[in-house]
């Protein structure tokens, strides 16, 4: 492993790595746009200039390989001067409309200008004007003026998604990003181009203009969209959750995530959630506190004989939740009829070759492991027969958190509700659940962003995640619900506060008539 000196600091870097990787490894800031660790090297932005001892001219760090005994720096005056002028060139035609630019606050150009630029512009020519709101496809908008032609997005569609929609057209200062022959940028990875775009040229239609980024906080999590379990960051504030972005994890998702996974924040927000316990049946619902609902459900469970109880799990809960639920039903209630509800058995093994898998549950593997370790098995036919034959009086369902991936949801709700009592744990409100005829308990549970735990992905890799924010403070995790059903206590004082939902000038509505 070659030893090199980065700004005087001696480090050992892997064979064949580039100087920019050495800088990153040493934790030294270096200006760059076109280089991205997940893409090939283009060397077009010319900002990563470094001075290599013994070389007469400056080199670009992203395309220079390290050599034993090399000594590089980016602190000398000549480097600083070069980067400054490089930035000046980048900004010649840049509109600098930061106030209305969605990237402001997380923009490479802003950051690097503050760090390396800070000069008076010396261009007297008018700027080249280009189109500002170009529809690239169903998910992405392009602002051609803000683009600095780093070609990251082009390389992404070429190398990673392999869909080749984007290209650079025209020449000189008229160069611009566009789609080939008007073909829309439409693939399941298109929003990664928005993430890697170092400026505000590519913006996500879903997030565009909805928040300024400095209002957002981020929390690390695991995407619950499919069994791959990409590492993600969830961006939220006191109004709710706004977007999901990938987090680097070389073992699972690298630098990317799919567009489907980015939609998982939608059902988490207040609008779609179940906010209190509901007990009753069609037209006779009673909204009760979560505690009352779950306690009375527990009472019903303990009254029913174990053979008349059926437990149905979906693969959308954490390993810890499965463990506590299995323990409660198997060891305390001695229930033997346990079933795994798989939403799309025919698609489970599908894979798009990059990240996205047909199994749209984050923890199918974890559920299978729980079944195996508790020696439980149940076939779906038995469940159907048991409900039809009135063998099962009480059915408890750990319903899906993301209901949109369960195409058979309505049908299954109908089937389960033929049992005398139905206990349904769900994060989101559901219309067909509201119109069932049997005695029903609806208990709100937490979504992935509100709880800590772990998911086991398709490889069998157990990935821990922490709670990010709380949207519905009343909602319980399955472990808490099980404790309450068993008649024990949980610590209510430890519960966090929820979000307020869309911001209003709240004092106004409270004031009323003077």
């Amino acid at each position, binding site marked *: 492993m070659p030893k090199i000196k980065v700004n005087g600091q001696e480090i050992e870097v892997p064979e064949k790595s580039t100087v920019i990787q050495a800088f990153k490894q040493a934790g030294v800031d270096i200006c760059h746009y076109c280089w991205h660790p997940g893409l090939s090297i283009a060397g077009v932005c010319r900002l990563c200039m470094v001075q290599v001892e013994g070389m007469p001219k400056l080199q670009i760090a992203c395309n220079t390989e390290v050599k034993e005994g090399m000594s590089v720096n980016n602190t000398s005056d000549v480097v600083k001067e070069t980067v400054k002028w490089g930035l000046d060139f980048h900004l010649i035609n840049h509109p600098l409309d930061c*106030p*209305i630019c969605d990237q402001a606050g997380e923009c490479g150009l802003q950051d690097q200008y503050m760090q390396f630029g800070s000069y008076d512009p010396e261009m007297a020519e008018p700027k080249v004007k280009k189109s500002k709101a170009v529809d690239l496809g169903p998910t992405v908008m392009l602002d051609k003026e803000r683009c600095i032609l780093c070609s990251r997005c082009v390389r992404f569609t070429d190398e990673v998604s392999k869909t080749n929609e984007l290209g650079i057209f025209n020449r000189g200062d008229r160069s611009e990003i566009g789609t080939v022959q008007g073909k829309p940028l439409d693939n399941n990875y298109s929003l990664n181009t928005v993430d890697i775009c170092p400026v505000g040229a590519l913006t996500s239609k879903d997030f565009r*203009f909805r928040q300024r980024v400095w209002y957002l906080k981020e929390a690390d999590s695991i995407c619950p969209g499919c069994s791959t379990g990409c590492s993600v960051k969830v961006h939220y504030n006191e109004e709710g959750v706004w977007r999901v972005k990938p987090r680097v994890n070389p073992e699972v998702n690298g630098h990317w995530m799919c567009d489907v996974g980015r939609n998982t924040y939608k059902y988490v927000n207040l609008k779609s959630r179940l906010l209190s316990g509901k007990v009753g049946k069609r037209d006779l619902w009673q909204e009760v506190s979560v505690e009352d609902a779950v306690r009375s459900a527990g009472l019903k469970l303990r009254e029913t004989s174990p053979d008349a109880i059926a437990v149905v799990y979906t693969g959308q809960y954490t390993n810890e939740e499965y463990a506590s639920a299995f323990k409660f039903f198997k060891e305390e209630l001695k229930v033997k009829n346990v079933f795994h509800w798989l939403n799309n058995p025919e698609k489970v093994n599908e894979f798009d070759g990059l990240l996205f898998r047909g199994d749209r549950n984050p923890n199918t593997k974890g559920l299978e492991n729980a079944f195996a370790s508790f020696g439980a098995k149940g076939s779906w036919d038995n469940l159907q027969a048991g409900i039809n034959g009135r063998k099962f009086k009480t059915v408890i369902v750990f319903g899906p958190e993301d209901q949109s991936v369960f195409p058979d949801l309505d049908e299954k709700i109908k089937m389960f509700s033929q049992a005398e009592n139905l206990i349904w744990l769900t994060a989101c409100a559901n219309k067909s659940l509201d119109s069932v005829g049997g005695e029903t308990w609806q208990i709100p549970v937490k979504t992935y962003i509100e709880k800590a735990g772990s998911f086991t992905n398709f490889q069998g890799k157990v990935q821990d995640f922490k709670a990010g924010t709380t949207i519905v403070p009343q909602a319980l995790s399955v472990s808490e619900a099980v404790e309450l059903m068993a008649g024990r206590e949980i610590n209510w004082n430890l519960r966090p506060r929820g979000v307020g939902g869309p911001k209003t*000038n709240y004092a106004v509505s*409270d004031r009323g008539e003077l």
Partner: protein
Amino acid sequence: MSLVRKPSAAASWYLPGILAGMWFTFVKMIGNILNPKKMPTLNYPEEKYEYGPRFKGNHVLTVKKDGSIRCTACMLCATACPAQCIKITAAEHDDPTVEKFPISYEIDVLRCVYCGFCEEACPVDAIRMGPEWQTAGLNGSKFAYDIQQLAYRPQLKGGVVSVLDDQERHQAGI
């Protein structure tokens, strides 16, 4: 907090003080009756004091030459506002050269501390604080000023035109 004063011996000699005060009032009253021009007070609300144009009173959202709202919904004012009383909802404009505009803009003036930070933060001269200061209302919700009130209230006579014009800037190549 309540303050309890113990009656002291000196406090029982209050009459001379009161008489001195009444004498002073009486002298001023006679003076005002004899010479009403020099009277420093106003017969509010029949007479009103006009502040200079730089007075930081009620907010005005400026408009472009065509009368549409100047604000670009950048939310810098809302970010700067220490009272957090500005609420903006941004939306995409039909005209691609405009891009972003506020579909709703609301200032809760009862929470506003009239610091003027919003005016200072605005990059496009879209919000100003004007000389109006009489803010009366019968209902609490009357104090949440919306775009209609902020930009087009009758007192503004069709709106105040911003000094910053996009078309001019584009022509100048900015």
